[in-house]
């Protein structure tokens, strides 16, 4: 398919890039501790951008000669019909070495899924109902080729687990519903299942929190959804050029405890790859350094528009409905890579021990702040009171209300370990626990 697409594109277009992707997806789903669905899917396709005055795009997974030709002609027409842009496709560079492949998944995703499910069913205690479960692997190959002679190939794997763990205690049925992505299976060890089961148990005696302004501790995944959504939206070259950012370089926007990096190279990070989806090397870009805003991240389009260089942040990822297969169907967009928050200097245990009264949120129903304003108001799905330095009564329900820009100025403490995590709104993060002071909680 590759040769056919290249030769056809060369025939009709002078300046172009081609993004090829093929993915094998293996999946098992469970219902009430029993397998009820087994699937294997092969998917491959191509997205073509053409520069001819404007920048045009068209994509397809249909491999007939006629479909390929039509896709190219559509991209050319779209380039001709849109306004003239300052753009050039990037040249081949030296690429970093990264770690993004799980050998257990590569070429044997079906076995990997089967083994994990077997382990999972053995691990779940008898008094916990696995109401449903999804275990899925992606074995992915990409190839970016352009008219400047760039031709780069990459491979990666991904792994997804979504579970509903239900506990029944004294007639109260409660659920913990994790949905996690990783590059490697070993990054979601069975010890995580133990933790999820414990949270599900605790939820059976959870109470609604009371209304108060208090310190709130965010878990790594809730931190990713909260800060990642908002900072991610304001820290791009696109936001700068379009004047929809409220941050500027050198401005102090947060507590000096906070350092954030867009890290495209973090080992086994979910956005880690040698090159971005335009073929430019991924990098580690400091976004916030000790509370001061340092740099915007750029894709090729916004870099040239802002008279600078791409930082390797032209990526084909969406929010909420994440893309692993089918990335060829969307254009690269200017976005952060792995959202890395630098660990602090206190252990998680000390962070808790230093708090006299606070709320720890392990999971929101869906923390989805307004990316423009930073405002949010989200229901606590699983949390705890922290009292006198100890994790105390479980809580559930009520709202945590705030603004991300205000919160990051009031950081109390950051735990000393950042872990690979995925959110419900932002895919890829490496985050610690952070406690924020004076956050509004609305409950009883």
């Amino acid at each position: 398919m590759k040769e056919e697409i290249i030769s056809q594109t060369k025939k009709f277009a002078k300046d172009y890039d081609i993004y090829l992707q093929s993915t094998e997806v293996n999946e098992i789903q469970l219902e009430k501790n029993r397998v009820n669905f087994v699937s294997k899917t092969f998917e491959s396709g191509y997205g073509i951008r053409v520069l001819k005055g404007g920048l045009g795009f068209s994509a397809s997974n249909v491999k007939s000669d006629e479909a390929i030709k039509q896709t190219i002609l559509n991209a050319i027409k779209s380039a001709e019909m849109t306004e003239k842009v300052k753009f050039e496709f990037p040249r081949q560079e030296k690429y970093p070495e990264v770690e993004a492949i799980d050998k257990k998944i590569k070429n044997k995703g079906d076995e990997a899924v089967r083994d994990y499910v077997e382990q999972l069913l053995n691990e779940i205690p008898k008094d916990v109902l696995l109401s449903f479960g999804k275990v899925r692997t992606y074995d992915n190959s990409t190839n970016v080729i352009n008219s400047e002679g760039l031709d780069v190939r990459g491979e990666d794997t991904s792994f997804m687990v979504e579970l509903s763990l239900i506990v029944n205690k004294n007639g109260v049925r409660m659920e913990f519903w994790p949905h996690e992505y990783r590059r490697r299976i070993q990054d979601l060890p069975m010890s995580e299942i133990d933790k999820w089961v414990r949270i599900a148990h605790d939820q059976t005696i959870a109470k609604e929190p009371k209304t108060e302004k208090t310190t709130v501790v965010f878990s790594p995944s809730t931190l990713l959804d909260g800060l990642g959504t908002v900072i991610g939206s304001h820290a791009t070259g696109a936001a700068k050029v379009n004047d929809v950012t409220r941050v500027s370089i050198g401005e102090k926007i947060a507590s000096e405890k906070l350092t954030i990096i867009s890290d495209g190279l973090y080992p086994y990070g979910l956005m880690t790859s040698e090159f971005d989806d335009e073929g430019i090397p991924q990098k580690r870009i400091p976004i916030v350094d000790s509370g001061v805003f340092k740099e915007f991240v750029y894709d090729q389009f916004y870099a040239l528009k802002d008279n600078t260089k791409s930082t390797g942040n032209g990526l084909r990822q969406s929010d909420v409905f994440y893309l692993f297969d089918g990335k060829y169907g969307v254009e690269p967009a200017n976005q952060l890579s792995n959202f890395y928050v630098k660990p602090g200097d206190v252990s998680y245990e000390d962070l808790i021990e230093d708090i006299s009264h606070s709320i720890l949120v392990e999971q929101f129903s869906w923390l989805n702040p307004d990316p423009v304003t930073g405002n949010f108001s989200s229901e606590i799905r699983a949390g705890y009171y922290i009292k006198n330095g100890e994790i105390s009564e479980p809580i559930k329900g009520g709202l945590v209300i705030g603004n991300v820009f205000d919160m990051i100025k009031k950081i109390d403490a950051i735990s000393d370990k950042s872990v690979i995590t995925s959110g419900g709104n932002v895919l890829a993060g490496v985050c610690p626990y952070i406690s924020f002071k004076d956050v509004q909680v609305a409950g009883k």
Partner: protein
Amino acid sequence: MIQDLMEKIVDILGNTYYGDVRSEKIYSTGVGKNKSEESISTGSSCGLCVRVISDNKWYYLGFDTINEEKILDEIQKLVERVEKKKSSIWLQDPWELDKEIFVKEDPEKISVEERMSTIREIFNQTMANKKIVNADVGMANAKRETIFMNTEGSKLRQVLPSFKFAISVTSKEGKKLEGDYFVLAKQGGYELFRQINMEKEIDDVVKSAIAMLDAKQIQGGRYDIIVDPEISGVIAHESFGHGLEADQVMRDRSYLTQLKGKKIISDLVSIHDNSTLAGEKGTFFFDNEGIRSRDNLLVDRGILKQFMHDRQSCMLMQSEPTGNARAQDFSRKVFVRMTNTYISPGDWTLKELIEDTKSGYYLIKNLTGMEDPLGGNMQMSTHRAMGIKNGELTGLFKGVGISGKVLEFLNNVDAVTNDFDIRGGGCGKGHEDYVSVSSGGPHMRVRDAVIG
């Protein structure tokens, strides 16, 4: 012809208890503009999904490359491996259908030059006010063809067109940023675009985005609230409806499991899921298991009447199929999903409702919502609110979240208006498996709701 290959597949599937094959072809075009970028993008895709059930376990194969030899070989191997074992699944007489929804004005017949020029014009109008710093204006159209055959002998084909137009604007003053949006998403063609009162919609979103720069914050707590049709619809769908998907009942994961036939919410509230509603995003002729679409009355004046089903759940729960089996695409599992979900209108006018409310908030436009099928808790966020004092609308407030138990919330509905609006969008089951839906209803007043 793909049908020839599908018939060969069904022949092989004849050696199973039940099997089906579904072919999908999608063509789409999008035209958009913001301050820095103009885009015209086209996409086409095809895929084939083969399903077999044996001993109550589903086996799927998905292909996006039509290599007949490889596909038939893979299916043959699967059929031999899984054997013909009985399963609890609804079986019915075969039926045939070949139906396409024809649009009044095909967007593809309007040149992309003309569509781009129209988008530029709207963009320029939207950006005319200096406080608007950016706008995204776009339209998109798609056509989706589905061909379905199964071992019952059914042969079905449907072609569904969709159209979407959206404006979103960002306003800025100093460090303050706000925004608003307008979306129209329905089944149909360019005639839907021509029906939009563009001057009014642009004026509304621009004025609203600018006004939001001075909006105040609501102190979280319990208040009497009025919700608009968009929020009513999302409550019906997101907070309430997901618990009525029968696969959640089969998983022991629905707060509504034991409540069929019982009065569960205010008798002013009736809720439908209706996949036959002409022109809406969740409308079709048959679902992804070859079951005919229909209007399902879920709640009749407060009484829970029925769940939504696929072929397996209706057998296990001794019900009729409801035509709610849907998949995102050929590569994903078919689940029980909603279609067009809405609350029926009542008797009040909005004016009467506001005049009758002593103190509270009028919540406008939904931003997000998330289901909680087991707990029945609500998680929604709204765009903005107006204060209500002694029957009059007062100041503008920033959007709030709605929390609490959905049954308690809907039980506290004490007035429903006679207006009705429905909005198209997408729905995930959790954070996956996106399908086209719509949701709507009238305005409702809810006493003592938790917002903040």
